[in-house]
């Protein structure tokens, strides 16, 4: 029997994987991919709650609208973030996060 709890645990594990990647990796592109993974994990929890919170016998479509907005914002965020990474690569010739220390005192 697959319950909401199973989906929530999978979502939490995917989020934790992304978090570990963001902390441990030094390639800025892979850090960014892990961020995308964390966003999707949050979407999975939202869709799970939407399916198991019935409104008049149908899934709660407010939650799925929120997922729709999240996906749209994530797409815009990827475009801007990758443009920033390209601009960073032009000045530093590197995608290592430790090469960017200008704001360090």
């Amino acid at each position, binding site marked *: 029997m697959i319950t909401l709890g199973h989906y*929530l645990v999978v979502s*939490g594990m995917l989020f934790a994987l992304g978090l*570990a990647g963001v902390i441990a990796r030094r390639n800025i592109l892979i850090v960014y*991919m892990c961020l995308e993974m964390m966003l999707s994990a949050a979407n999975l929890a939202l869709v799970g709650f939407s399916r198991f919170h019935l409104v008049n016998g149908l899934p709660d479509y407010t939650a799925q609208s929120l997922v729709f907005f999240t996906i749209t914002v994530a797409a*815009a965020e990827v475009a801007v973030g990758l443009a920033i990474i*390209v601009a960073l690569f032009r000045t530093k010739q590197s995608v290592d996060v430790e090469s960017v220390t200008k704001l360090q005192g």
Partner: protein
Amino acid sequence: MPPLLFYLLALITLGFGFMVVTGRNPVSCALSLAACFVGLASLFLSLDAYFIGVIQILVYAGAVMVLFLFIIMLLDIKAEEGKKLSLAPIISGVLIAVLLVLQIITVVSRADIAKKSSANTPLALTEAAGKMGRAALPTITNDLKEGTLPDAKLIGFTLFDQYGFHLQVVGLLLLVGTIGVVVLSKRERSSAP
């Protein structure tokens, strides 16, 4: 949904997610992430969220991953073979991730809402047809009476009925994002001869 299928899809999602975090080559990381998103989209489909599942494949596995691969090939990034790993960030990352998962499992195992399954909260499609209120459009109620879930129509109704303003704000956000990308990627013309 058969439990075996759920475990298979969860294994695909988490396995490819693990390969994104541990992979050394950025291209293989990006391809693993695409596979991870496809697994996640099939989990959405298993939750009766067909529209969100299709959007997940189109936007994430399609557009976003192509953008990532395009940038990886544009920048010509080599795999980080020679560099030695620094141990402190890896240990702290794994530790925080394990703590977070344990915390979530503890909370989920004690919450009553987590015991809901598709067996004890089934969708009542034909009964819902009579209780649609403002959403009682003929196309939606006919689908419900036939016993199919008009997923995209219901999301569309929710978006345009309740969140029309938010939809326009998101459209403005996409416009601002487009302008931002053009400004950021414009090469500054050097004034020196």
